[in-house]
């Protein structure tokens, strides 16, 4: 027996800021994305897309001689439409044809697929097609969508709405008892998510396996597989979805794509590999699909700023179709359950509408409804504080759920697991010299301080999602752990890592349980043929769910290794323990490394005991926290903004985030998640906006028009962490992936308004572009 010393290497387990394993390939430009993969005989697809927002499609004339290389809806025999229903009462489900059929419902909707050996030739074909259509009146404004004279986008519907929800409560007495009441009308702008890598699909039919292999830039390969099998009429076993390296998701790739279905169908039909790679023009013109909310919020408070009640009327522009699997209503309907935020709100009335418009179908973008909700709640609170003449910190402290109330069930039934929300606020404020700021304001400077605090439900499971009744409900998350014959550890997981660093953090979890060095742990993900089923990476769930599953699989694997080790050490099971990557006698007299145990199982089975567990050194285990209503991480964002009163430009002078993600599996990676999200939140606050003209044309066709924050627009952020463990998860970790993108619009606009209100001005619409800021100042001057 070899003696194995306790490792005194730097820590690699849960809590270590380990460098990311995957960066070795990413930093060398060796990532492998769909666009890097080619197959012999491959054809490229270019889509002919709708030039108009709403029309009756009368016909498509294919270029002469190219009739067999251009495919329209009529050519796709046996291919169904995409349907994503919800069982919320009153939900109207749309039929989204994968190629337009009869009607065109938004600019950029795919009409025909053109195939050629190169993309340029495929685009030549698309350019040579002619379209015959009859334009219809266009619905671009979500508030006007339900007007009685609005054109119907789905003609058999009574009006242009997917769903309306109501939470009724009589608040009519509050006017009589409240010390303050404010009403605000607020708007957020439509965004186009912009991962560095766009979408892409490579589909091929493998005759040996009788299998369709779809390589796709996807966040949730198993869900795509189910969707593809259903719509193409294949057995699910006949579909394999591979998501290779994926250059950012954010929700943009959490969808079954019409282009995926069409490419897959063409690959089978033409018996050739078929690839479609989205370009930036397609992305911007056909996919501005998120974040457009409108709110009318009324809030009542007593003299101390305690909220007495809030009434919300929210509309979300859900676009033309219900996308698979999240549906068209998830975002709006969520508003009703998350609007109360981190507060002890006593009374609440809320109506939401998922409006149907001639725009690209809605997708949940990092933060989902929370970014808009946090913006609406937090700016309203500041307006209340100003009216009451109390501090914006005081009004929050008067309403935040106190730590002693945790776990706390709020009035809509959300349960917050743990945390000290007021402390996050106090810590953030303590980072600033606010006296100095007030002095600058008194001297006439256009500067302001703003706060935004929120909690983020993540990793919510079956008990939450079954109520939505959408095509996908997460259950037990599974992971497979197995030793290779040389003692390495392989983890297989159905979530996908596209920037989250899961190849590192899941290895850290396994190291924590088994002691195997992370260099010897491989995380396999992104392939339905290799990994257990999972709904994938969304909803800030992977570290809680896959982390829990990996820990459980490793625990069971450890027990099996322990039993074999005990035999090899000729000790009873109670005399041995697993530590430092070895099974050791508790008395310290001998140890056997996991490598040796693996070698024994696979290659020297003659040394095994008769009653060994025949499952061997491979375990698939499932995990679900109990309760599975989700973790609640939370954060306070605080910022000083300076306004150029001549141009309306906003500069962020100082930005602080105090974040509590529970136990941090890898603090460095969490910092990266928060900072990346924060950059996107700054985009929402100050830059990102896809304007549509009255004809439904998206107006920002390049990244020179659709402004994304870059290195020069994101300030150096000061990040502070609290680490209140969740009592419900394996290590106390909480979902935190979306957090950074939630807080910035609230904090930044509150800072702007802190500067502006002394000039009689207030901003309500996002983004806080220079033109809007200047217009607000001008309106203030006239007031």
């Amino acid at each position, binding site marked *: 027996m070899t003696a194995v010393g306790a490792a005194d290497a730097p820590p690699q387990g849960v809590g270590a800021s380990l460098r990311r394993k995957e960066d070795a390939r990413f930093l060398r430009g060796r990532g492998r994305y769909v666009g890097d993969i080619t197959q012999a005989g491959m054809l490229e697809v270019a889509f002919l897309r709708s030039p108009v927002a709403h029309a009756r499609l009368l016909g498509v004339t294919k270029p002469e001689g190219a009739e067999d290389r251009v495919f329209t809806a009529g050519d796709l025999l046996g291919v169904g439409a995409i349907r994503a229903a919800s069982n919320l009462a009153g939900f109207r489900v749309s039929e989204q044809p994968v190629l337009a059929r009869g009607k065109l419902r938004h600019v950029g909707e795919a009409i025909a697929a053109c195939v050629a050996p190169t993309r340029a030739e495929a*685009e030549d074909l698309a350019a040579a097609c002619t379209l015959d259509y009859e334009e219809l009146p266009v619905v671009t404004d979500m508030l006007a969508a339900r007007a009685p004279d609005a054109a119907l986008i789905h003609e058999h519907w009574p009006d242009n709405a997917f769903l309306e929800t109501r939470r009724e409560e009589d608040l009519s007495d509050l006017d009589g008892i409240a010390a303050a009441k404010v009403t605000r009308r607020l708007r957020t702008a439509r965004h186009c998510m912009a991962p560095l890598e766009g979408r892409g699909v490579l589909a091929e039919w493998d005759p040996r396996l009788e299998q369709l292999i779809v390589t796709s830039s996807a966040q949730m390969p198993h869900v795509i597989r189910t969707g593809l099998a259903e719509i193409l009429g294949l057995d699910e076993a006949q579909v394999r979805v591979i998501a290779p390296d994926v250059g950012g998701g954010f929700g943009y790739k959490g969808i079954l794509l019409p282009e995926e279905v069409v490419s897959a169908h063409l690959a089978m039909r033409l018996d050739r590999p078929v690839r479609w790679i989205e370009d930036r023009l397609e992305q911007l013109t056909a996919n501005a699909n998120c974040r457009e909310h409108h709110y009318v919020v009324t809030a009542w408070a007593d003299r101390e700023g305690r909220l007495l009640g809030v009434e919300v009327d929210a509309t979300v522009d859900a676009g033309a179709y219900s996308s698979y699997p999240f549906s068209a209503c998830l975002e709006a309907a969520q508003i009703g359950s998350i609007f109360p935020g981190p507060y002890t709100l006593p009374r609440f009335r809320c109506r939401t509408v998922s409006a149907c418009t001639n725009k690209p179908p809605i997708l949940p973008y990092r933060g989902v409804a929370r970014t808009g909700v946090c913006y609406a709640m937090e700016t309203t609170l500041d307006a209340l504080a100003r009216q009451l003449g109390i501090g914006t910190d005081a009004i929050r402290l008067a309403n935040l759920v106190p730590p002693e109330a945790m776990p706390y069930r709020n009035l809509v039934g959300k349960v917050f697991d743990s945390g000290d929300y007021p402390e996050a606020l106090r810590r953030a404020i303590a980072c600033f010299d606010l006296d100095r700021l007030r002095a600058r304001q008194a001297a006439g400077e256009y500067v302001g301080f703003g706060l935004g605090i929120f909690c983020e439900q993540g990793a919510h499971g079956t008990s939450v999602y079954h109520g939505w009744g959408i095509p996908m409900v997460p259950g037990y998350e599974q992971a497979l752990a197995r030793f290779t014959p040389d003692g390495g550890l392989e983890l297989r997981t159905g979530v996908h890592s596209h920037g989250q660093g899961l190849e590192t953090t899941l290895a850290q979890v396994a190291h924590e349980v088994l002691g195997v060095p992370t260099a010897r742990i491989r995380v396999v993900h992104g392939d339905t043929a290799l990994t257990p089923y999972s709904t994938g990476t969304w909803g800030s769930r992977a570290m809680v769910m896959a982390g829990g599953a990996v820990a459980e699989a490793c625990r069971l694997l450890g027990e099996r290794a322990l039993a074999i080790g005990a035999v090899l050490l000729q000790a009873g099971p109670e005399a041995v323990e697993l530590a430092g990557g070895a099974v050791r006698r508790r008395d310290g007299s001998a140890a056997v490394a996991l490598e040796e145990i693996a070698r024994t199982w696979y290659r020297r089975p003659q040394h095994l005991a008769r009653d060994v567990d025949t499952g061997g050194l491979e375990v698939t285990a499932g995990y679900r926290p109990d309760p599975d209503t989700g973790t609640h991480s939370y954060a306070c964002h605080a910022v000083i903004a300076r306004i150029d009163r001549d141009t309306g*430009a906003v500069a962020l002078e100082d930005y602080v985030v105090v974040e509590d993600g529970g136990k941090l599996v890898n603090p460095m990676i969490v910092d990266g998640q928060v900072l990346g999200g924060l950059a996107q939140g700054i985009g929402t606050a100050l830059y990102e906006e896809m304007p549509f003209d009255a004809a439904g044309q998206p107006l920002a066709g390049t990244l020179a028009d659709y402004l994304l924050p870059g290195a*020069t627009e994101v300030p150096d952020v000061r990040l502070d962490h609290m680490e209140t463990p969740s009592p419900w998860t394996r290590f106390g970790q909480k979902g935190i992936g979306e957090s950074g993108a939630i807080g910035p619009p609230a904090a930044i606009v509150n800072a702007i308004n802190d500067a502006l209100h002394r000039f009689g001005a207030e901003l309500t619409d996002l983004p806080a572009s*220079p033109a809007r800021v200047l217009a607000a100042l001008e309106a203030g001057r006239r007031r």
Partner: protein
Amino acid sequence: MKPAPFGYARPGDWPEALSLLRDGARPLAGGQSLGPMLNLRLAQPATVIDLRHLPGFAGVAVQDGYCRIGAGTSHAEIEDGAIPGRLGAILAGVARRIAYRAVRNRGTIGGSLAHADPAADWVAVLPCFDGAAIALGASGERRIPLADFVLGLMETALRPDEVLRAIELPVLPPEARWGHWKFCRKPGEFSKATACVLAVPGEPPRAVLAALDMPPLVIADAGALLAAPEAEAARIVAGLALRDPWRAALVRTALHRAALAAWEMEE
């Protein structure tokens, strides 16, 4: 976003380039504007003439009080000091604010001027100098005053059979004052308002207001602006009758701040 098919020619001398031009081919310099236009199929030329290998396309020469800048000189070369003296320092400061380095490495001063986007930096700044664009055609070189070069949105005084060969600017004394201000929300976004002011001792100060959706506005005697920057900027911009109040505010601010910068002798 792939270009329609086109031919590619790489002439070795200027006469060959001009003869290709007469056949309707489109010049290509750094490709930083033409490339996107080809990809978006906004431009579908039958042939593209790559000018980059022509003798003397890039490079700077000083003679007789003038600095001759080859049309193919890149923004990056100018940023890095290819042009000597006070003029060079001023132009380096302008070049540094064009997009980001990757674009500046390829984009050229001539390409930018010939492209004639009213929001582009060279289009805005060059008319402030009492210089000329040198056009080359079958009958030789022709000088076009820079103030008259850009005629409108993507429209120049170049004839279809001419290329822009060089830009000639007067060498400036070290005391020349310069102010330049532009508004864009991030690098690479085209300016929403640009102004510059040049004051050479012994000459009337000049100013240019640009990025106005029209050719740059040259103020040949900007003495009043330097004397009372805020009031004069407001007066000039009021005369433009811009409809969008935000743009009007930006343009006013640009002019005002460029004038202030000239006093502070920025750059």
